[in-house]
């Protein structure tokens, strides 16, 4: 626990907790009409006492929209990473545990998938399925799977060679029990670290997809969408881009710092 009490760990943890809190509470506390209310007389207002973070091209409060965007972005990123872990676990464990031909075939496939840039894969899947919220999750989830499968396989391979696994085998444990009781719990720490870091990448991917119009669709509020909408007003209202940009930066920064610290704490090899 002491290792968490570094400035980096503390900043990361507070940022992550703050953003989680905003993401969960925003939709409950902010009345829907406040975020969607268009005030045509107050378009593109700079940040002021009336409009904390200014307003967008339709006179909507950026403060409320960026808060609600936290919910969308985190939800998509969280669900996508969960999906890639769930898909990556069986792939990686089977590969690392059974080795041999199964491993060769599966990892050849995974390596090939890794030749596709994750963002390209996500964009293509999203464009093909038709861009909307669930498909954005599926697209990012699938795009991140090969990467996680690779890492999980490496860990499973390492753990499967441990003496206690051999001992359990000698005691007559069957494969399924072995995987569930001995392999899985022991590969979790590095996977949690990787999932945290992937979460940061997923936030960026969601922002990228939405920015290109192949992710979250309006009227849903999302950081990528907000940045995209701001493009036409950069000269007169730069804050419309800077506010959601800063939201993405703080979230990803927090997740990266938190992930780095988590790695120091959980990964036995860096001890």
């Amino acid at each position, binding site marked *: 626990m002491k290792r968490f009490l570094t400035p980096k760990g503390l900043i990361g943890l507070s940022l992550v907790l703050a953003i989680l809190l905003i993401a969960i509470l925003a939709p409950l506390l902010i009345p829907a009409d406040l975020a969607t209310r268009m005030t045509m007389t107050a378009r593109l207002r700079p940040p002021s006492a009336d409009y904390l973070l200014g307003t967008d091209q339709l006179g909507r409060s950026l403060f409320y929209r960026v808060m609600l965007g936290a919910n969308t972005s985190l939800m998509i990123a969280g669900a996508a990473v969960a999906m890639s872990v769930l898909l990556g676990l069986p792939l990686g464990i089977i590969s690392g545990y059974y080795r041999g031909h199964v491993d060769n075939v599966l990892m*050849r*496939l995974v*390596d*090939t*998938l*890794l*030749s*596709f*840039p*994750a*963002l*390209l*894969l996500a*964009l*293509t*899947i999203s*464009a*093909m*399925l*038709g861009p909307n919220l669930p498909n954005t999750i599926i697209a990012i989830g699938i795009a991140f799977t090969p990467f996680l499968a690779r890492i999980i396989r490496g860990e499973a391979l390492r753990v499967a060679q441990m003496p206690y696994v051999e001992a359990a085998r000698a005691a007559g444990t069957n494969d399924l029990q072995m995987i569930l009781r001995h392999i899985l719990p022991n590969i979790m720490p590095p996977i949690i670290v990787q999932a945290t870091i992937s979460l*940061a990448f997923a936030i*960026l991917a969601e*922002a*990228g997809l939405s*920015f*290109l*119009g*192949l992710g979250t669709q309006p009227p849903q509020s999302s950081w*990528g969408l907000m*940045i995209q909408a*701001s*493009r036409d007003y*950069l*000269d007169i209202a*730069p804050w419309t*881009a800077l506010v959601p*940009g800063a939201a*993405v*930066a703080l979230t*990803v*920064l927090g997740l*990266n*710092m938190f992930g780095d610290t988590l790695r120091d704490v959980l990964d036995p090899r860096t001890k």
Partner: protein
Amino acid sequence: MTYILNRLLSIVLTLFLISVITFGVTNILPGDVATMIMGTQSNPAALAGLRESLGLNDPVIMRYGRWIGGLLTGDWGHSLVFKQPIAELLIQKIKASSLIVIMSMVIALACAVPLGVWAAVHRNRWQDTVSSSSALLGISLPDFFWGIVMILLFARTLGWFPSSGFADPAQEFGRALMHAFLPALALGLGLMAHLTRMTRSTMTGILEQEFIRVSRAKGLAERTVVWRYALANAIGPVMTVAGLQVGYLFGSIIVVETLFNYTGMGWLTYQALLNRDVPLIQATVFVIAAVVMLTNLIVDLLYLLVDPRIRLG
């Protein structure tokens, strides 16, 4: 020699798998090419006719065979949106993108290596904090956000560079560089941040090794120890990471080229995706994955040249 032969064989296999995945991903769609050409409101009988004549009713395996046969014989088909042969389009756009990919690599490496070395040499001091924090900030912001900041700063406010467009380097080299600079910088920043982190951690490990202590004890200048001895050992892993990041670069290029309206490969891919131009999507996705795979292979082989300790039998 056997190693290189094996690698060559595996390229063929991987290219085949890339083609299968590309075809698979672009065939999960509910709509199809026929509706794309004629629109959703078109007459069902005409639509069915077009489907038949395009061979869309054939089994998947036959359609894949026709597609891969076309690729192999140089018939890449026509783009539905651009009404042009795809092969021509691709060659044009790949040239445009090579310029910014190479520029961004150069920018990233030129900044990341000194920054990373600087941080490793002054580990846990303020220099390290500055370098590591800026690298962390670099990987935490989306490239398109950097792009927007650059448009605001360098194009709109200072007016040094154009904020959008493309010029052909074969015709006007100077203007082409001006147009490529900001997109390359936006692409390079994220990459630079990754490479700085990598250089720092590799160098930190190397500076703790025995031979470094020996060289210092020998009385070599600190500059020689760090830049000649230590860096020579760190450059291999850093190059490998740089090579692996090419994949990331080709993902980002889609966003960055679209933002700067730079008509290269990324922009073309985006237009294809946006308009669901399936033949063009298949071609661009296939080419990008193949380029990424081949780059990684080249980096692996370069590694053999750079680091004589590695000998694979």
